[in-house]
């Protein structure tokens, strides 16, 4: 028994060279799909992958073009549209109800009540029958590989191969991509032979030929993504030659979508290459030499052929073509037939060419000289390779008849376009958006020109109404999963302690681009450990910069509002970074080192912006400053809590007493044999030592601190505990608690701004704003209820602000929060409601307001 595929449960024999479409057609299948809206029967039409008529489900993949898919033994093929089946489709009644389903009906109906659209959308989607994505099957994202070439040729016909061979022989790195096998969509033996000869010439010239590779689009570069069977190529080419050929023109007349209507190349391909007669009696309407030649070829396959050149008035039939009405010199003639073959001109496949306008993208062959001979195509390819590509020809469109389908993908008829025009959609671009013509899988390859011709021919059209709609990727339909090729959906930054955290049972979360521990088990316990014993927090994510050079102090002084000139080595200061408008961009710590150097710490998320910002000022002021981002190089561990010093003293011979290393001082010390810069800080409101160290030493330092801290009840803590600990101290999280237009006064940070300095970034803006009343301010809140972040704050029935941070605090004895409030009648309200709970404005910090614990 020979090869066979399974089609809806039955066996269909496969001959050598068959496509899925040719095998099915040989087996008697005539209806391949049902149309999107009206469920009209659709059969083979172009046979070159340009139209949507043969989209089937092949081996579980929906929307596969049967005409360009090689048939294989064991393939499982299904039709996807139609209910209960494509052959007997009850939904075809929508074709009888067309007047109730006008163009754009879904934009006009099911609007109220609003929930109806949710239901209607589901029904409409199911009814369209465009196939379902294979649920339950993981997307098999292909790898993406970048390739650099001097010349990329898209299209493996005569022109493309000639161009590639010519450029390859001249020494260029050339790649040629062809969406099928070379010559697979050509019926003419002479053309096939020429393609084979040119392929040999190109290969000998070093050209890399990739079959079954589809160019998706042309982006700036030119950059061309190409989808292959196993990978997606990201091709950066110095030049691109689009030798994508042409499809025969789509004619619009009543019955133009009936099964049995073919483009002549498709009919000849089916008859000559695949040995399957498209019908018994064919009317060939040809206005081209090629059409007449292919008619003769068709005749040689045993089809009775009647050749005409008159316009087609209509095709008749129910389910397939039964007769054709032709305009002849002697009047209209009705001819009985089962096949109508059309060769009325060309529609160049120029989407890539149009995407590459103003780039090094040229056309060759039929895409610029539609209908050209083999010799002309070859010469055109060689000219393009030598930099003498042709301009695209102006192609006449086939005159539109009285009705018929313009867009086969979206079921848009001439009548629909007329109705849309009358409703005021009066250019091809907005007709496209309203009717969705050209927005289906063919992306306008078939219908783009008829749409433009329709708009351009209207008597009341403006000059640009008939312009072709913009060509955008994808030029050919590709599986959605291929769009994901090479995408790294998650790029995570990790500190050197990441694996340790996981070993300790941490639950991690994304904090900006960092992976950080939320908790190691119990947030309340972690808070308690920090408040009563000691806790360890990985703060290696902080931005860390070394600032050196003879102008380092000047840079710091001019950039930041903090006082810098009197900052002696060994001392640190909190700083805010302001932009030119005086708004707070970031905050951090500035530590003065010896030799006029500084160590600057920014927030974890603010490091890249801080570096870019400082470099900008260095350049702008032409300062002699060396800035080194040490964020990746250095790790940092915060050891905080009343027992922190005791633990540290166990691991260091350096003096870390309150006298030697008080709050907001720093020193170079050695902890457990690890050289560290110890910074005394107090973000969590307890004695705190931030130990900055070489990243590679992080795990051993962390282990040593945990071990030494065990007798003192120390434990690691995460962002969950940190959120409450810092809130109890009234410390802000920039970005969470602040808004982009917050200046220091709104945040209660005036104390961090030395307005008496001669100048700093943002000072002029702050001076101007100082004269204005404060319309909004950040306040501490006590809430008689559960903590809820983000809820509005009400004064009476007026919304006056929002809660930005909130937590239940044992140390503060209730629910505390930070939030911003607006002034009401010139004063800030103090009695509020948040989520129905009485809320009172209170001073911050909520915990240890004198700061005695931090300074211990």
């Amino acid at each position, binding site marked *: 028994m020979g090869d066979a595929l399974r089609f809806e449960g039955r066996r269909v024999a496969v001959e050598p060279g068959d496509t899925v479409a040719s095998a099915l057609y040989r087996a008697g299948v005539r209806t391949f799909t049902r149309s999107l809206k009206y469920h009209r029967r659709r059969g083979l039409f172009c046979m070159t992958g340009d139209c949507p008529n043969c989209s089937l489900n092949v081996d579980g993949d929906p929307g596969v073009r049967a005409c360009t898919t090689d048939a294989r033994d064991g393939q499982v093929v299904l039709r996807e549209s139609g209910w209960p089946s494509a052959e007997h489709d009850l939904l075809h009644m929508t074709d009888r109800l067309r007047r109730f389903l006008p163009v754009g009906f879904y934009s006009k109906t099911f609007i109220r009540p609003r929930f109806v659209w949710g239901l209607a959308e589901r029904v409409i989607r199911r009814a369209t029958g465009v196939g379902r994505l294979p649920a339950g099957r993981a997307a098999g994202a292909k*790898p*993406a*590989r*970048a*390739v*650099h070439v001097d010349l990329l040729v898209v299209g493996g016909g005569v022109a493309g191969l000639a161009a590639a061979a010519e450029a390859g022989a001249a020494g260029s790195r050339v790649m040629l991509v062809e969406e099928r096998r070379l010559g697979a969509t050509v019926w003419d033996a002479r053309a096939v032979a020429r393609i084979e000869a040119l392929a040999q010439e190109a290969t000998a010239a070093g050209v890399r030929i990739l079959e079954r590779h589809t160019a998706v689009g042309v982006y700036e570069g030119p950059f061309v993504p190409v989808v292959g069977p196993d990978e997606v190529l*990201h091709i*950066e080419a110095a030049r691109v030659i689009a030798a994508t050929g042409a499809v025969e023109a789509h004619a619009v007349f009543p019955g133009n979508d009936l099964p049995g209507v073919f483009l002549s190349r498709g009919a000849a391909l089916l008859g000559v290459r695949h040995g399957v007669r498209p019908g018994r009696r064919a009317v060939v309407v040809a206005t081209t030499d090629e059409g007449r030649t292919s008619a003769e070829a068709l005749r040689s396959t045993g089809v009775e052929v009647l050749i005409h050149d008159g316009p087609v008035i209509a095709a008749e039939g129910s389910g397939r073509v039964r007769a054709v009405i032709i305009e002849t010199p002697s009047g209209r003639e009705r001819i009985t037939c089962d096949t109508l073959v059309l060769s009325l001109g060309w529609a160049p496949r120029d989407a890539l060419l149009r995407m590459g306008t103003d780039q090094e993208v040229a056309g060759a062959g039929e895409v610029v000289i539609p209908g050209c001979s083999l010799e002309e195509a070859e010469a055109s390819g060689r000219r393009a390779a030598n930099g003498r590509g042709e301009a695209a020809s102006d192609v006449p469109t086939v005159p539109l008849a009285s009705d018929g389908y313009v867009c086969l993908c979206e079921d848009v008829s001439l009548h629909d376009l007329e109705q849309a025009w009358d409703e005021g959609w009066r250019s091809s671009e907005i007709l496209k958006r309203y009717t969705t013509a050209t927005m289906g899988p063919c992306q306008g390859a078939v219908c783009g020109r008829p749409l433009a011709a329709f708009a351009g021919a209207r008597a009341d059209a403006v000059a640009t109404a008939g312009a072709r709609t913009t060509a955008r990727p994808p030029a050919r339909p590709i599986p959605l999963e291929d769009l994901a090729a090479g995408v*790294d959906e998650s*790029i*995570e*930054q*990790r*500190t*050197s302690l*990441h694996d340790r955290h996981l070993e300790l049972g941490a639950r991690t979360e994304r904090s900006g681009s960092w992976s950080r521990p939320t908790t190691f088990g119990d947030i309340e316990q972690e808070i308690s450990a920090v408040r009563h014993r000691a806790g360890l927090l990985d703060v290696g994510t902080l931005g860390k910069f*070394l600032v*050196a*050079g*003879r102008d380092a102090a000047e840079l710091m002084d001019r950039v930041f509002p903090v006082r810098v000139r009197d900052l002696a080595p060994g001392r640190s200061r909190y700083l805010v970074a302001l932009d030119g408008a005086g708004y707070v961009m970031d905050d951090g710590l500035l530590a003065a080192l010896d030799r006029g150097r500084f160590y600057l710490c920014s927030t974890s998320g603010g490091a890249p912006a801080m570096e870019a910002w400082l470099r900008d000022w260095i350049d702008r002021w032409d300062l*002699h400053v*060396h*800035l*080194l981002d*040490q*964020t*990746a*190089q*250095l790790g940092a561990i915060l050891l905080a809590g009343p027992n922190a010093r005791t633990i540290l003293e166990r691991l260091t011979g350096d003096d870390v007493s309150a006298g030697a290393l008080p709050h907001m001082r720093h020193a170079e010390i050695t902890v457990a044999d690890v050289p560290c810069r110890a910074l005394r800080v107090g973000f969590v409101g307890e004695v705190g030592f931030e130990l900055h160290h*070489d*990243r*590679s030493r992080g795990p051993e330092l962390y282990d040593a601190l945990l071990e030494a801290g065990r007798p003192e009840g120390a434990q690691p803590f995460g962002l969950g505990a940190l959120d409450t600990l810092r809130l109890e101290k009234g410390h802000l999280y920039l970005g969470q608690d602040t808004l982009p237009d917050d200046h220091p006064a709104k945040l209660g940070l005036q104390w961090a701004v030395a307005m008496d300095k001669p100048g700093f970034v943002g000072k002029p803006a702050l001076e101007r704003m100082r004269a204005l009343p404060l319309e909004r301010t950040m306040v501490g809140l006590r809430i008689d209820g559960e903590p809820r972040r983000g809820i509005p704050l009400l004064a009476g029935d007026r919304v006056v602000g929002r809660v930005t941070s909130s937590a239940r605090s044992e140390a503060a004895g209730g629910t505390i929060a930070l939030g911003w409030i607006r002034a009401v009648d010139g004063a800030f309200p103090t009695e509020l409601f948040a989520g129905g709970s009485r809320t009172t404005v209170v001073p911050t910090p909520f915990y240890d307001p004198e700061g005695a614990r931090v300074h211990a």
Partner: protein
Amino acid sequence: MPELTRAPIGVVTASAEAGALDLLLVPGRAFACRVADDELLLLCAPPVTDEVAREVATRLAALDPDALVIDTTDGWVAVSIAGDDARVSFGLLSRLELPVAGFLQGEVVHVPAKVVAGDDGVLILVPSIWQAHLHDRAAKAFGHTGPLEARPWAVPTS
């Protein structure tokens, strides 16, 4: 598929006036990557990193007294791709076009990277915060399973 290995490497960062860096005589044991007008990365074998840093600091001090020379080895992580198809396979990780030999910088596995191309392969350095990302993505691209073996990188002559 190419051979993918970890490449332990010493990195020294030198920040100085552009003119000073232009005149700097790079120690023979190091490969110099000019990452900016005023910044140079010197790649070397880990055991000689201190020596290279000292030598560069001494030489640069004479050219720019404010020059900053720091051992930044911990800030970087490197992998090496070797084998006949190393250069083609690099395309699975980056859209950068490799030179015949030498240094370039840009995106690799979607993070900023330094790349050194040579006859015997390609070295990729990224900030160490992306160590896991680089290893995971490179291993996935090349079908490598298990931990990456460490192999010394042969420092090319600058």
